[in-house]
């Protein structure tokens, strides 16, 4: 019997090409096993063969999401795989997003089962958990020996069309898919048992976790717009030409503050977008689409509001962890307060 053909995806680091300094290498594919592929092959066993390893630098992938995905898809398809495994990416944010993006594309376009692996806090988990089986790993490559066999086990099941059991049994991040089963006791009695534990302050487990409530109550409305000082904050990745602070095109770890003093609109000579999550063509042509300076200046002249701050604050939203996003806010809000900004317009993409 022919062996089941497997393609593996890893980044520049696991391909032993280099670290951050090599993160901009373009997509390539090599026949056979590279790096952690050996552990994958071992986990899959004799019925499977890792026929090729696709590789891409994390920064390159983040900056050229669509092109790189398309290129990698073509390279992978040539090896006619029957199973695709990406990572594991552990807690590496850009690597996780890359694994998720490429795995999802392979599943959709090539119609074969895919598996990846990430640490729970990797932003790729929330981005792709509904689409993919993402094995829960530790937060660093030290966990490779433990996580690769779990990935391989699930990959085998998927390749053979066997029934996949619940997340705690198979070791994947819960995908949020609600599946029916017949419990041993009826719902009313389960509810009573849960209540007894809750009242006794003992641990209990809800059967339907509510969606996350990391919500902020809206601020009170602005009462005096005529004298309000307005600032623009965006997660749309608009930066000065050349991206002087090297804000990442996905999974951002920093934000920037740039002047718009004396400008009546966002000129494409001065600004560009580095955002890796949308088609940049229109915004490259007209950055006002994301930071609507043109309209704001008009409204300012008409006296609709008092004054526009002479700068805007920017970062990239795509793949950015909520932890980083929260930190950005904590970092720049004092500046806004200090400058007596009344209200902020947040634009996203």
């Amino acid at each position: 019997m022919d062996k089941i053909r497997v393609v593996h995806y890893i980044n520049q680091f696991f391909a032993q090409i280099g670290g951050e300094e090599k993160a901009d290498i373009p997509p390539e594919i090599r026949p056979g096993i590279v790096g952690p592929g050996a552990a994958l092959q071992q986990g899959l066993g004799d019925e499977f063969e890792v026929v090729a390893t696709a590789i891409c630098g994390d920064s390159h992938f983040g900056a050229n999401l669509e092109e790189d995905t398309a290129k990698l898809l073509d390279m992978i398809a040539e090896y006619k795989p029957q199973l695709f495994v990406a990572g594991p990416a552990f807690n590496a944010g850009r690597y996780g997003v890359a694994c998720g993006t490429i795995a999802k594309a392979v599943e959709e376009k090539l119609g074969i089962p895919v598996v990846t692996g990430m640490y729970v806090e990797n932003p790729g988990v929330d981005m792709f958990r509904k689409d993919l089986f993402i094995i829960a790993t530790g937060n660093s490559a030290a966990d490779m020996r433990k996580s690769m066999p779990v990935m391989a086990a699930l990959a085998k099941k998927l390749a053979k069309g066997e029934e996949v059991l619940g997340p705690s049994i198979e070791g994947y991040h819960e995908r949020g898919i609600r599946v029916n089963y017949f419990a041993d006791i009826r719902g009313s009695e389960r509810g009573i048992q849960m209540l007894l534990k809750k009242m006794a302050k003992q641990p209990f487990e809800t059967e339907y976790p509510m969606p996350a409530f990391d919500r902020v109550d809206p601020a009170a409305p602005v009462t005096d717009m005529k004298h309000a000082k307005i600032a623009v904050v965006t997660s749309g990745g608009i930066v000065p030409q050349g991206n002087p602070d090297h804000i990442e095109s996905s999974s951002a770890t920093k934000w920037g503050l740039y002047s718009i003093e004396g400008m009546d609109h966002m000129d494409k000579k001065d600004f560009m977008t580095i955002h890796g999550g949308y088609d940049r063509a229109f915004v490259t042509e007209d950055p006002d689409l994301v930071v609507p300076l043109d309209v704001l200046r008009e409204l300012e002249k008409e006296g609709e509001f008092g004054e526009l701050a002479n700068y805007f604050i920017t970062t990239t939203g795509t793949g950015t962890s909520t932890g980083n996003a929260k930190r950005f806010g904590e970092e720049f809000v004092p500046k806004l307060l200090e400058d007596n900004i009344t209200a902020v317009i947040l634009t996203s993409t």
Partner: protein
Amino acid sequence: MRLELGKIHIKDVQFGAETKVEAGVLYVNADEICKLVLEDERIINCRVELAHPGESCRITPVKDVLEPRVKVSGGGQIFPGALNKVGQVGSGRTHCLDGACVVTVGKIVGFQEGVIDMSGPAAEYCPFSKTQNVCVVIEPKDGLETHDYEQAGRMVGLKVADYLGQFARDLEPDEIEVYETKPLLEQIAEYPDLPKVGYLHMLQSQGLLHDTFYYGVDAKTFIPTLMYPTEIMDGAIVSGNCVAPCDKVTTYHHFHNPVIEDLYKHHGKDLNFVGVILTNENVFLADKERCSDMVAKLASYIGLDGILITEEGYGNPDTDLMMNCRKVQNAGVDVVLITDEFPGRDGKSLSLADACKEADALASCGNGNVVIHFPPMDRLIGMTDFIEMQIGGWAGCKNDDGSFDAEIQIIIASTIANGFNKLAARGY
């Protein structure tokens, strides 16, 4: 209040020259039932059919399911204010034909009542696939107005259940269950060391085919009130709703409210079941605010430590469920919710139309969007002409041999949101 519920076990139902119960068999005189039903001029045709567990038989469209009961002593009559005269119920002795059900069947075009299969894969999901069913198939007068037809259909169920229940009056029960809840102060004093637990029963009250009645009062017109748990066992609450077969609380389920039954099992052991709060699920938003405030007030007023909350329906009621949960929990009373889920065809969307962070304890009654196959059946009670239009069906879901695919929300009480069944959903 102290209620003795005498159960006469019914293991078979047959037609007979006279209606009677003998050796666990319920014999029904179909002519008498039809005569009773046809007293109402709005009904022009009535047929009685019997369905037994395990038969290759499908019943649809089902409106309501009821258990025959009779009040033997203690005052009042079954279904007070809805069928019989208004009078306090919940005490004394009540008899029921345990294992037998009255099923009302008939077309209401477009209103999508549900399906009961007596065997096959769908039977696993339906509590009434396991009961001996007396099906009353009715046909309304031409051009009968929808409100009138709903009311007429509801009365048919009540009358027939009441009629059959009369034959249990003088029988010796096979089993007697005793339920007792004392006046609040005494009840609290009886088990001073146990946590005081209540039950918030939310009643459908949104309008036509979405109504519920308490002693005959339309639930949308009342404000939250206290009820002795035993009142419900005498028919104080009657279902007047037909939509959403899967999580409709039938009148049978009001008799057999699982939260009340199970709380009584724990009563005096690890908790003190002190009473039931009734509230509604109104469309008028200010009502939601008002009623959830009152629910929270009542819960703390009677000194509850914990409460279980059940809802009926999807969408609008989810808002009430969450408002009640938030306010009651914030009043210092621990809350557990019981409800069913509609996370969409792929199971990936949010299960409820509303949410709140206080809802940290929820028992699931299953995902109503799951599709199963309904094989052909030898016998049909009612009609399947409208399967494709019924809730859970779709254009083209029905095959020539009578089989069809549909979401389990088409099955009566499959995901009933009070925890009556063992069906549940979990995250994958």
